[in-house]
């Protein structure tokens, strides 16, 4: 059928419904509702009081139509790559020797370690997470300043899983038209069987999603075995259950409602965007006034203006959020680009140039209306600022990660008593010393105290010495706290507070770690 005729048919459909007839889901009615926008109720009729407006709006079921084109292909590619990483990454092995797990990506909560290929993060290094979050936020801002809601349209898990669920839905219940027709026919055995099958597959995907999630928190192959034999800890089953439910509910039932009502990002990005940012845009300067093919030909013949938009509603049918892109920027629009593909297909059929809907900027539409050429401004204050922050934070992170120590030392001076007078008049201070060994072998550390003349250093529970200095063994990938006593026979001034430095040097050689503290006297 010619897309341009759809509207005409639709109007016939509407008029055919007689008063008193039960309301039906109808192609045309659906289109009319979608035209009104996904969230807004029907426009106020004259004379109707505002108080009669509904306080709560029911969700309008969306039947997104399948499209093919550049953006659809891009979305499939990102979906396949993203989901493949998510589902299979826990099974990737990484040899770390006998004293650490062999999983490339592992969040070891009981052991308080995070492993990411060659990087191992200890809890006190959580600032790397802070840095990552800053980079992530700034990347989001930068993407938004350059090309709008790239995250929402292509990368957000909500979008990716919803896309997958819609694909399953189409596969079982048919594309838009078939699905609508089936729904209109009421409950038949065929429809029930298809619905059951759809929910079964949705639940299977949801279950696998939850299952993959828990694999990041334990050794994946053995956890899979434990899960299958019901030997896994309860918390694993609980989290699989929770994630199965959230995936099924959010991607199967909630869909665009998540983006419109639950996610804060649409609101934030609306405040961050500007007139130079590329957004999925209906080029109304070219499309308006919209009119059918025949009428357009007539108008052109009379020398009157007619736009390229033939009001075929294909952009709306393709939209997973039920948005009419032609109404301008919309908080519900995730900018997935599927309307571009839909419109391009129509433009190709009717022999008009593509990209009536395209990634475009507000500035260029205005300039075209004034007969000016396009103006692209990638380098703007905000993009430079976002990029600079990303570069600086990445540089700092890389530098600190590359130069970080494999060992560490923390010192806490005894709070009570601050110092001890011994029977021969010597003064002693007690310290709790925490030594970190981030290598994957047992290491011996030589403890040296500098800054205090005539200092005698003793470690409780460790007699070993190397050249007079105490030696402390710390197990692989572990930390150890020891009590250290520093005694001096030196005559101290009144209320002495002498800066001292504690140094641990790996006995086998390597980077030394320092910590500063004080030696206090009477």
């Amino acid at each position, binding site marked *: 059928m010619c897309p341009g005729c759809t509207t005409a048919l639709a109007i016939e459909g509407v008029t055919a419904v007689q008063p008193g007839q039960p309301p039906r889901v109808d192609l045309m009615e659906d289109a009319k509702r979608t035209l009104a926008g996904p969230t*807004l109720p029907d426009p106020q009729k004259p004379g109707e009081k505002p108080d009669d*407006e509904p306080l709560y709006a029911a*969700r309008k079921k969306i039947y997104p139509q399948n499209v093919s084109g550049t953006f659809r292909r891009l979305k499939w590619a990102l979906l396949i790559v993203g989901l493949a990483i998510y589902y299979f990454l826990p099974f990737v092995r990484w040899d770390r020797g006998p004293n650490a797990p062999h999983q490339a990506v592992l969040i070891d909560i009981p052991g308080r370690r995070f492993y990411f290929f060659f990087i191992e993060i200890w809890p006190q290094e959580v600032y790397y997470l802070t840095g990552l979050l800053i980079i992530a936020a700034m990347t989001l801002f930068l993407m938004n300043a350059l090309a709008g809601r790239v995250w929402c349209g292509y990368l957000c898990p909500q979008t990716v899983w919803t896309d997958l669920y819609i694909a399953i839905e189409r596969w079982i219940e048919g594309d838009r038209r078939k699905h609508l027709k089936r729904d209109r026919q009421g409950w038949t055995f065929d429809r029930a069987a298809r619905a059951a099958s759809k929910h079964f597959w949705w639940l299977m995907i949801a279950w696998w999603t939850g299952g993959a999630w828990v694999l990041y928190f334990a050794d994946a192959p053995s956890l899979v075995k434990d899960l299958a034999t019901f030997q896994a800890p309860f918390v694993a089953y609980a989290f699989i259950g929770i994630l199965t439910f959230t995936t099924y509910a959010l991607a199967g039932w909630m869909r665009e409602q998540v983006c419109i009502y639950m996610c804060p990002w649409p609101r934030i990005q609306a405040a961050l965007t500007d007139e130079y940012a590329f957004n999925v845009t209906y080029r109304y300067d070219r499309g308006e006034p919209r009119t059918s093919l025949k009428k357009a030909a007539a108008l052109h013949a009379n020398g009157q203006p007619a736009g390229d938009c033939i009001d075929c509603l294909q952009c709306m049918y393709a939209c997973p959020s039920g948005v009419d892109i032609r109404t301008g920027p919309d908080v519900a629009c995730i900018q997935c680009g599927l309307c571009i593909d839909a419109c391009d297909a129509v433009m190709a059929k009717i022999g008009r140039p593509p990209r009536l809907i395209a990634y475009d900027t507000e500035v260029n539409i205005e300039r075209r209306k004034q007969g000016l050429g396009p103006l692209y401004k990638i380098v703007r204050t905000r993009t430079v600022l976002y990029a600079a922050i990303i570069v600086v934070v990445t540089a700092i992170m890389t530098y600190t990660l590359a130069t970080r120590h494999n060992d560490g030392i923390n010192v806490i001076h*005894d709070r009570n008593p601050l110092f001890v007078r*011994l*029977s021969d008049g010597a003064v002693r201070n007690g310290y709790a010393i925490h030594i970190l060994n981030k290598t994957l072998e047992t290491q011996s550390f030589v403890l040296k105290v500098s800054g205090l003349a005539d200092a005698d250093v003793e470690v409780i*529970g460790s007699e070993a010495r190397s050249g007079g200095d105490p030696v402390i063994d710390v197990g692989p990938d572990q930390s150890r706290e020891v009590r250290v006593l520093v005694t001096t026979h030196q005559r101290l001034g009144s209320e002495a507070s002498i800066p001292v430095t504690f140094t641990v040097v790996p006995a086998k050689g390597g980077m030394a770690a320092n910590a500063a503290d004080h030696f206090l006297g009477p």
Partner: protein
Amino acid sequence: MDDRTEDDRKLQPQIATTGHEWDGIRELNTPLPRWWLWLFYATIIWAIGYWVVYPAWPLVSSYSKGIINWHSRDVVATDLAALQAQRGPMMAQLVSASLQDIESTPELLDFARALGGRAFADNCAPCHGAGGGGAKGYPNLTDDDWLWGGTLADISQTITHGVRSGDDQGHQGSMPAFGRDGMLKRDDIIVVADYVRSLSGLSTTPGADLARGAKIFADNCAVCHGPQGKGNRSVGAPNLTDQIWLYGPETKTIIDGIWNGHGGVMPAWGAKLDPVTIKALTVYVHTFGGGEK
């Protein structure tokens, strides 16, 4: 009045407002989604279910118990049992290991110090201070001067049976009240106090008769404190020649001690604490820094 621009009108032909207007600013009518309302109802139903299942409502003399009979004290008991189970293997080692073995095994030492530290804070810190630093009349446990001995065995004995605690095996013996009980005259006490100060090299009153002080000391004090004043641990007599003073080195304090005597009391903790806790406490006190081999 419709004051939208032409483009606005073209792009958003239908826009619902609440009809409210303030200084030309109109309020869009954006109703909440209905599922939000359902969630709200669901929370109410959840709350009712919660009241039925868990303790919830105060009644006149009691409260509604809930059908699963949940009680926060049961949770505490379960948690404590889980803690004991978790500590079990280390606890068993602590019970069987000797005090020396505990100190030479790093894991056991850490465990004993952690356990001992808690017990010390609960039971010992009121007198000996949070870090064992002591106070006037309450010995400092972190130095190397011990009234009753500083080996592991000595410390264990002192903790278990106490000092002048009424326990048969506790440490006995006290400093007599030489002045109050008329054993020494006032000026003898003043002279001997000066002599005691001289033992650890402290200044004495100008013109003090230290020879007479030494005579008085030999006749009255050396029985317990030893001929050189080095003390005697079997009766808890302090060493008077070192730098550590339980009550203070001032002449007045020493005179006061000789006149009125001393006899501080430490309870016998064996009656209150279990043997493992005392073991852990012993190790903890021993590793303050002053422990003797």
